[in-house]
């Protein structure tokens, strides 16, 4: 295995392990999101995105208030480094993946290892659903499908200015049920925003269960292409495949639909299918099974 793959896979494995560790400690958490997206987060932060060093403290900041006129405020975007013209930007769409993002920042050395101790803690910025002040988060996107439009505005401004850096958006497949997503795809294609790149965690999961019935009608990539952007499918756990798909130059806004397994690395979790959105243990016995799975993952 080449060096970049080895180190990137180590980041991915670390994300998955950290999230399971957290879920065990807290008796619950967004586990399937980590199972499915660990490789794509690792690819973004450890290999593909061009980011400068973090400008934020390693220890997560305390919440200081919501934005308003004349009040101090920060976004968590400074964990992703400076906004210089040559740097990439990261816009995080499914804010309930926050735990995965925090774990990623820890794995790539942008956030202290102890930060997850503050997860969902009152007065902390390490919120359960990533807010604009949370580490790694630059915009308010927890209301799903709003990130792509905001990233479109940022990419448009950067294109007008002549910046060379890309704007990366991480999305979940359920967000393609929202009309706003399609408004955005059409507009970014019309504006020819080839500096906008989107990676989609196509894990086939949403809060109520499986969403694959929609996919049977027409694959997502076909629909995205019909709206004027470029789109390719990729195995979301294969680093070579992801690398090829994510770095492809098409002259258009580019989508990578990464097919993923929502129980990747944790097959035990598959017993709960199709309800995988949130993992909470229902008995001591079940918890013990997951502890055993964790021990196996660590070894």
């Amino acid at each position, binding site marked *: 295995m080449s060096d970049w793959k080895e180190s990137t896979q180590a980041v991915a494995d670390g994300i998955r392990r950290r999230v399971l560790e957290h879920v065990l400690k807290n008796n619950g958490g967004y586990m399937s999101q980590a199972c499915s997206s660990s490789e794509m987060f690792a690819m973004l932060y450890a290999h593909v995105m061009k980011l400068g060093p973090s400008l934020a403290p390693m220890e997560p900041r305390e919440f200081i208030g*919501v*934005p*308003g*006129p*004349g009040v101090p*405020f920060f*976004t968590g975007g400074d964990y992703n480094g400076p906004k210089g013209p040559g740097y990439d930007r990261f816009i995080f769409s499914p804010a309930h993946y926050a735990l995965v993002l925090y774990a990623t920042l820890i794995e790539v050395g942008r956030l202290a290892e102890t930060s997850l101790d503050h997860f969902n803690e009152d007065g902390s910025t390490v919120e359960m659903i990533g807010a*604009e002040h949370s580490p790694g988060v630059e*915009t*308010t*996107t*927890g*209301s799903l499908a*709003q*990130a*792509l*439009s*905001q*990233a*479109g*505005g*940022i*990419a*448009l*401004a*950067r294109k*007008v*200015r002549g910046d060379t850096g890309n704007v990366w958006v991480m999305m979940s497949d359920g967000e393609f049920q929202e*009309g*706003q997503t399609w*408004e*955005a795809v*059409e*507009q970014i294609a*019309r*504006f020819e925003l080839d500096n906008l790149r989107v990676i989609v965690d196509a894990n086939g999961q949403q809060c109520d269960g499986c969403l694959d019935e929609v996919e049977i009608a027409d694959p997502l990539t076909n629909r995205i292409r019909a709206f004027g952007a470029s789109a390719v499918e990729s195995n979301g756990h294969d680093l070579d495949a992801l690398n090829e798909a994510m770095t492809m130059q098409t002259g258009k806004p580019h989508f990578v639909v990464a097919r993923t397994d929502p129980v990747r690395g944790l097959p035990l979790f598959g017993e709960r299918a199709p309800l995988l959105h949130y993992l909470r243990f229902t008995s001591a016995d079940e918890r013990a099974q997951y502890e055993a799975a964790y021990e196996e993952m660590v070894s």
Partner: protein
Amino acid sequence: MEIVKRPHVQNFIDWSADKPEVVVLTADLTNSSEVGNWRDTYPDRFFPMKMAEQNMMGFAAGLAREGYEPWIHTFAVFIYRRPLDQLAMSIAYPNLRVRFVGFLPGITTPGGVTHQAIEDLSVMRATPNMTILETGDATEVESVLDVAHAVDGPVYIRMLRGEVPRLFPRDEPMRLDRVRVLSEGDDVTVFTAGITTEEAMRAAAPLAAAGIGMTHIHVSTHKPFNDPLILESIKRAKHGVVTLENHTIVGGLGSAVAELMAENAVGKPLVRLGLQDTYAHGASRQYLMREYGLDAPALVAGIEKLVGRPTGITEADLEVVRIEEVHSMSKAEAL
């Protein structure tokens, strides 16, 4: 009474000349929002977002985060109804410098319920970080640009288009959170905004002749609503207060005045004139103002209720002093 034809068109072009950060976004209503010439003057700063308002809010947010000042131009209803979640989460929460220029406030359009922004002030007043302005004449259409430009955060503007009267001198521009005192008297205090101001001005002389002292306050900033003159004017009214608004009486100017009175323990009657918790329908502005009680006769009736006696003012009296007869020359506003 001077009637100014499309005051926003050239004024906005001239005003934008030395502000390269100002960009315009529209949603398939470019000429209807009086920025067709602006687009032709500054094509590089104009972004047609097509009929997709939710996405337009996100693009505006992204542009604002990158240092641009987006001026969204469209009908008011398409700003606060369809894309409210996007407006709130993508723009208002992060307090971004986006300006929403909302045309066709209240019943100023024959477009009916789909085009009439009758609860925009309620929704926007309940939106944190939002500054809310309303233009009442050509001078305010012109000067609202500077007021909005100076605000550190999102601004919603109820904008007038087409033929607009000039009620206020050119050298008395709109100022943030400052009301205008248009007449003074101690019997009643009347608050108006936008197109209802002209109605109250029309009633001023007949009321004075009938021996009723009216303090008439014109409001152009709905939020913030802190000008000390507002409370002072309420306190001086012997018989009570009337609000007359081109909006539902729930959540708009009448509610703002009621909140202020209650919080300051001003125990006086308040008559809220406007749409009485109802939608309207498609018809001419004058017809709708009569039907829903937003005009000068409705105001006189409201004042008579407060003072407890008839004024003897007839509709003919109000017609005689009609100050905007030139309006009869103008076409009903097209969509």
